């Protein structure tokens, strides 16, 4: 089970809406499974149908997490026109089996929907998610 505090959840929603209609992406850092910080990241693809972190920015944040003793708890991205469920591309490019894949649908921007998944060897498992 993953519980995301309100303030970090709001940062995700704000980042998602700011990047709309392009997909937004980010990294959730945690300690012992508890989220501590959300990093809003640049989508190098600047696209409504795909995302890719800037490798330089990714390395910088990974190094920072190492220094702070944080783990990569979650990988966040938005779907701007489809449901909050990993796409075929998400499965193909899921290289982080230890992270929660956090997918937020903004197909109704008034009511963002966030869901959490594990993706291991192309297999999706939904995980329980609480906000607050």
């Amino acid at each position, binding site marked *: 089970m993953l519980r995301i505090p309100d303030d970090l959840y709001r940062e995700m929603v704000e980042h998602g809406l700011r990047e709309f209609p392009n*997909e937004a*992406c980010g*990294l959730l850092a945690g300690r012992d499974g508890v989220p501590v910080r959300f990093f809003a*990241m640049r989508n190098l*693809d600047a696209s409504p*149908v*795909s*995302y*890719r*972190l800037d*490798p*330089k920015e*990714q*390395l910088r944040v*990974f*190094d920072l997490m190492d220094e702070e003793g944080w783990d990569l708890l979650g*990988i966040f*991205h938005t779907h701007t026109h489809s449901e909050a469920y*990993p*796409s*075929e*591309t*998400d499965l193909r*490019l*899921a*290289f*982080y*089996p*230890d992270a929660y894949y956090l997918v937020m649908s903004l197909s109704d921007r008034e009511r963002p929907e966030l869901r959490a998944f594990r993706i291991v060897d192309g297999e999706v498992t939904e995980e329980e998610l609480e906000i607050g």
Partner: protein
Amino acid sequence: MAVNVKLPTILRKHAGGAARVTAQGSTLREVLEDLERSYPGITKNVLTEDGGLHRFINVYLNDEDVRYLGSLETPVAEGDTVSILPAVAGG
């Protein structure tokens, strides 16, 4: 030349769970070849079938992206650190 290699979680299963290993070589390609000899299968998703660097794998030599150095032909020196970091991407 012995270099340190930092492995992402997804590749550690090939190396008995180790996060860091050492490998030999004078170029990045030789280092990866040595890694494959020690841990068969570990470079399967790092290199493409024609021996290039996979588009969704980023490799850093002492924090420099090797794509801006000499890619797989980048020379390495004793004690260098090679970090393998899969892209964070999707659709």
